[in-house]
């Protein structure tokens, strides 16, 4: 009986199912909810991988902020179900096979990646990453990207305000 494996498969199933739902759902809200499902599932997988901080951030920022924004906007506009137009023949016919081919390539490479064999999670695995080290890394070697990102955020806020403001 292998608990981590069970957990992994359960949540990866959830994630994939959610992703599929994102595609199939016609109601944007449903897509959003499915995506939230995917994200939470991934968060759990992160926990399984021992990345607690990332898991928390994943939920907090992604599910808790970004997706809330999405849901909020969907509700605000409330444009109803999406219409299934097919003006782009290219996308209609070539899209799926191409995506599949791409998926094959990526999967192939990832599967044969040198570290793929390593054990990721489970009893044989060292305990999770320490948040302290992570933050130390973030504020030393990655200080500049960090600051840059914060500036990016600031600009994004301003941009969003300017864009969404109703001009009188």
């Amino acid at each position, binding site marked *: 009986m292998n608990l981590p494996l069970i957990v992994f498969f359960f949540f990866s199933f959830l994630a994939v199912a959610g992703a599929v739902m994102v595609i199939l759902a016609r109601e944007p809200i449903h897509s959003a909810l499915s995506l939230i499902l995917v994200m939470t599932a991934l968060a759990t997988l992160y926990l399984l991988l021992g990345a607690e901080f990332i898991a928390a951030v994943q939920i907090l920022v992604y599910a808790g902020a970004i997706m809330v924004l999405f849901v909020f906007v969907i509700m605000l506009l409330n444009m109803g179900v999406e219409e299934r137009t097919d003006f782009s023949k*290219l*996308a209609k016919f*070539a*899209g799926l096979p*191409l995506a599949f081919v791409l998926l094959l*390539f990526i999967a192939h490479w990832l599967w044969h990646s040198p570290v793929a064999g390593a054990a990721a999670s489970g009893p044989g695995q060292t305990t999770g990453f320490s948040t302290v080290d992570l933050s130390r890394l973030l504020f030393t070697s990655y200080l500049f990207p960090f600051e840059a990102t914060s500036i990016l955020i600031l600009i994004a806020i301003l941009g969003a305000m300017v864009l969404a403001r109703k001009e009188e």
Partner: protein
Amino acid sequence: MPILNHLWIILALPLAGSAVNGLFGKNWSKSAVNSVAIGSVSLAFLSVAELVREFSHLAADQIPYVGNYFTWMTAGTFRVDFALQVDQLTVVMLLTVSFVGMLIHIYSTGYMAHEGGYYRFFSYLNLFMFFMLTLVLAANLIVMFVGWEGVGLCSYLLIGFWFLKKSAADAGKKAFITTRIGDFGFTVGILLIFAVFQSVDFTTIFKSVAATPISEGVLTTICILLFTGAIGKSAQLPLYVWLPDAMEGPTPVSALIHAATMVTAGVYMVARMNPLFSRAPVAMLIVAIVGAITAFYSATIGLTQTDIKKVLAYSTVSQLGYMFLACGVGAYAAGIFHLMTHAFFKGLLFLCAGSVIHAMGGEQDMMKMGGLRKKIPITYWTMLIATLAIAGIPGFAGFFSKDEILEAAQSGPHANLVLWLLGVVGALLTSFYMFRLVFLTFFGKPRYDEHHVHVHESPFNMTVPLMILAFLSIFGGWFAAPKLIGGIDHFEKFLDPVFSMYAPATAVVSVRVVDPNLLPPGYSAPTPGMDLLHALTGWPVIVGILGLLVAWWFYVKSPDTPKRLAKSLHGLYTLIFHKYYVDEIYAALIVRPLLWISTNVLWHVVDERVIDGTVNGVAAAARESGGELRKIQSGNMRSYAAWVIIGAVGFAVLLFAVLGMR
């Protein structure tokens, strides 16, 4: 020494005048334009005078005095400064140009009084003065070349002043293009000079050529190339054809540019480059030959012309020929001397002709004139003086200069009897057609309709310059007078440093230097008494008087003689009358083939097919492919996404298959 330290002032004045008139003169009153134009030129003349005063105080070793203002351009070893220089030659030229120029400006105010584009005319005229003075003052070939081309431009602008008249516009173009041919040679010459001497600076060139001997072949080539430029500019064979047509321009322009100043630039240049020429005997010979032949040839054409200005034009050509003859036989001083006197009397002649035309209300055909003697006395007398001067009648300016030239051709170091003979015959013809002109114009019965044409003497501001120039035409040559009675030719004496400073040891610079230490070895000064007699009874005088008499016989005594003569020598007459069909020959040999090639090859094939074809083809290709490719930009984001994926897959395939990432 205000002016000497600021030579640029002399240039700045006419340029400023030209700019002011050209930019603002359009709506100004004539008097305002006059005051600007004449003011600037007269100030220029005054500063030149001041310059001469200052120059006279310079020590011998300070000459030439060079004023270097700024480095114009540098490329590697090629370095050109905007530098001006003053030496005796420059002084002479400056005085002549600025003074005659000033007079002609004044004259123009009267002559052009009723013309349109008044301000334009004076703007051009001032501009011309600027460039001419630049040419004269230049201290290196490049600056000289600027002036050289500048005067060419102004000549073009002024010949085509009445550009609405097709013939005028064509004449302008013809002048410009023809001189361009010569200028090409000049340019090549300059480049060759730089290649040889690593400098375009006069002093440097001369010093080096004097210090280190250069192979004569190179020097000859250089000199011939330079002389090509001179041929173009000074209307020598075979490039003289533009000058007669240039008479389309207003008469003052003909006087200033095509008699007094610009056309003499070639002579000036040759004289300026004398250290080179003196070391290239072949080139010298060529110069002399071309000069002599031109002198004779164009004189013959002058015989039959009936247009008063055309006659003067051909006589100008022939007189320029004399100057080159002088230079060719090494008598630069004589050449310059003749240049100056010629500036006086030929300028005067043109102005008088202008006055006549003015009086006749625009009529230029001598056959429709006659008997104007009483009606316009001032013009008549001044013109008579000028004619006497050009005919070389003793006592007048022309006598001294022409006499010196022929003297040099006869007995100078490079003496050549054939050339001398040509010169003498030319002199005969000259005096003949000049008096022919005078007699046809002022004597005999009026051949025009007196009821329509109201002949009237020109206004004050036109006659005064005439008189001044007449005065100069008489006394302008008397510098040389003392020589006749065994004294010194002051003019030569004055110019001597320029021509002797870098002269080769063997060459004899001037013909009659009495200064013993300037005498070449094996050359003894003749005795004074002989000189006077010899000069007065010399061939030039004789032929001059002979020409006068013949002309008198033909056109006053028995006016029908010429016609009979023309009948009897019909072939020759027509040939000469049509100027030896030179224009036609040129047209047949050069112009038409050129046109044909330009039209059928360069235009219809090279330009239309090749160049336009290429350009249009490229454009068309771009448009077509764009027209096809733009369909990709459907504006539909989904297809964009699909394209992105296609790209990604393509890249993946590249990595996998080609770069072997497995």
